[in-house]
């Protein structure tokens, strides 16, 4: 041991000090609590008030969940079991969950929407996440036709021949590609004519020759979250590309295109969605040739899509406006044409800027699907009314609406989280 002696200032440490844990106030939970919860009189009061609120809420809602009854076939039975205790009666969900999910879809065919839902997740994976192999995109491309067949049933040829329409459109485009304008118009018109006039007869003939099909199920048996997801997901998937085209059209130099887009956007934004839905359910029949059976779900999907597309167009226009003019100039100066410049330079950036607004519109669209209850489609809200009209469950509110709210929350919250993930992933500006 080398004790520094009085008249010798040289000093050599011979034993090294071991590392010690920090004092309890310098790290760990105590520090965290001090700096975050009790860092001043105001914070301390806020923390105490907050704690009391939590205590109060748990004290009141906790027992409601804790003593809830899951096994009961009617509200009366449930009340009997509870015997005066104020608690939830989740028996209604156990009893009716299949209706809330599938509406009046035939129970022996529940596997069809379930399979379609699982396949939808597979189809969405490569679009949402870059790490999924690109080959899966082929499946995403045929998924809409497959889902249509699974949900509505009937002959498979209708879906197959329907998909063929896209192939025909592409072939026509390739054949006429020398003249871009003609090729584009033909690539849109020819498939539409094909669907209108040839799809029915051809698929009819094929199904007679080779009847492959599953039981046909009509739209009026659809309902519950199934219908919300059908309308919501289709609307979301279609409104984004249509919104992009409308936003570009609104900025176009071609006056006709510009005025059509402006007129469309302003008209759709100017009317409430519910009037569009009534138009879809009632008025459209007057305009269509008599005898045409235009599926109500399809009509609603079209209206919801157009409605969301108009909002989407404005959100994307905001993103376009936020891009510096220099980006357009640099793309032009490199010799990129209009479509290449937009696809490679302008849209990726404008869409990235607009992600919060786009997801906002998506979430709004998904929640607005509950409005279809007013035109007689049994979405979850519609079904909750039907369930409460049943004498067994007459008078139940909280449990049903809570469950519906929870399901909507899961969908909307996932969209919100995904958008944050995407924003982070695309962050390349390092500002």
């Amino acid at each position, binding site marked *: 041991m080398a004790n520094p002696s009085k008249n010798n200032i040289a000093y050599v440490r011979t034993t090294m000090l071991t590392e010690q844990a920090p004092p309890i106030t310098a790290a760990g939970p105590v520090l965290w609590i001090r700096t975050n919860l009790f860092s001043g009189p105001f914070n301390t009061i806020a923390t105490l008030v907050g704690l009391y609120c939590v205590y109060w809420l748990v004290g009141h809602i906790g027992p409601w969940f804790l003593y809830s009854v899951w096994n009961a076939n009617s509200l009366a039975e449930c009340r009997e079991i509870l015997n005066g205790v104020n608690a939830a009666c989740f028996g209604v969900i156990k009893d009716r969950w299949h209706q809330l999910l599938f509406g009046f879809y035939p129970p022996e065919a529940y596997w069809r929407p379930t399979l379609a839902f699982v396949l939808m997740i597979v189809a969405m994976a490569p679009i949402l996440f870059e790490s999924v192999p690109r080959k899966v995109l082929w499946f995403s491309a045929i998924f809409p036709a497959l889902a249509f067949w699974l949900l509505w049933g009937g002959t498979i040829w209708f879906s197959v021949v329907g998909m063929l329409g896209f192939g025909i459109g592409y072939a026509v485009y390739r054949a006429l590609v020398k003249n871009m304008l003609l090729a584009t118009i033909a690539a849109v018109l020819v498939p539409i004519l094909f669907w209108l006039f040839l799809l029915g007869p051809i698929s009819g003939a094929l199904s007679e020759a080779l009847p492959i099909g599953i039981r046909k199920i009509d739209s009026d048996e659809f309902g519950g979250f199934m219908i919300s997801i059908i309308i919501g997901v289709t609307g979301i998937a279609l409104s984004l590309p249509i919104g992009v085209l409308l936003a570009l059209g609104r900025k176009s130099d071609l006056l006709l295109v510009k005025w059509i887009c402006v007129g469309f956007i302003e008209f759709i934004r100017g009317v409430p969605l519910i009037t569009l839905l009534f138009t879809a359910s009632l008025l459209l029949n007057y305009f269509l040739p008599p005898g045409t059976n235009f599926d109500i779900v399809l009509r609603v999907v079209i209206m919801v899509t157009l409605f969301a597309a108009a909002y989407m167009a404005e959100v994307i226009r905001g993103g376009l406006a936020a891009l510096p003019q*220099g980006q357009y100039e640099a793309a*032009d*100066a*490199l*010799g*990129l044409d209009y479509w290449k410049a937009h696809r490679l330079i302008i849209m990726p*950036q404008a869409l990235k800027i607009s992600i919060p607004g786009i997801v906002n519109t998506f979430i709004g669209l998904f929640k607005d699907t509950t409005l279809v209850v007013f035109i007689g489609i049994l979405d979850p809200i519609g079904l909750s009314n039907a369930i409460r009209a049943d004498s067994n469950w007459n008078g139940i509110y909280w449990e049903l609406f809570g469950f519906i709210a929870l399901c909507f929350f899961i969908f909307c919250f996932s969209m919100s989280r995904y958008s944050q993930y995407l924003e982070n992933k*695309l962050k390349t500006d390092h500002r």
Partner: protein
Amino acid sequence: MSEAIADRDIDRSQMQVSDEVAIQITGMNKWYGTFHVLKDINLTVNRGERIVIAGPSGSGKSTMIRCINRLEEHQQGQIIVDGTELSSDLKNIDKVRSEVGMVFQHFNLFPHLTIMENLTLAPIWVRKTPKKEAEEVAMHYLKKVKIPEQAHKYPGQLSGGQQQRVAIARSLCMKPRIMLFDEPTSALDPEMIKEVLDTMIELAEEGMTMLCVTHEMGFAQAVANRVIFMDQGQIVEQNEPYEFFNNPKSERTKLFLSQILGH
């Protein structure tokens, strides 16, 4: 201003002006609404020329060189670039744009793409070069502008001078026959200006046809073979650099030179 390049010997062996005409502008006029920005511009640029365009702010320098690749449209007169006349014919515009490179004051790199993607985008999508080959060419030019190690970064991670050199490399990847520069150094700090000017001088030494709008009079004296002075939308005076700086003819030029050199 001239000290930025004073310490550099310029290799003039390849700086030859040929008789071939690269750009021919005759009787060009342009208006913004009722405002007459460019008035009766006549200019012939031969292949291999290095032209510096100077003039007070708002005199129409940017507008003039932006007309050469049709970022701006002229309303009267004729512009012929590499034998192709600029009109509303989109094919001609695309042809000219793929032959003419342009460097902007604010770089205008694509912030959502890496440096490598910035450089290979146009060769792949416009020239249909295979990706591998485009990347090799891009790497060659990145080495030339002395930042090959930044290839996989994003523009936002680079300094201003580096970004501008990337922008020059991006134009060069299209193998242009003419390069336009619109105040390429005005948004940069002094030490970065030198990096960018060095790159531009190297380009000049290789015989590139260049039109530069710049206030770097040192650069003009060192590499330009002609200086053009513009004011109020007109070409007021043009001359070879020595005469231009030491013996200006017009009063406007004298005033301008005294303002920019006399500090």
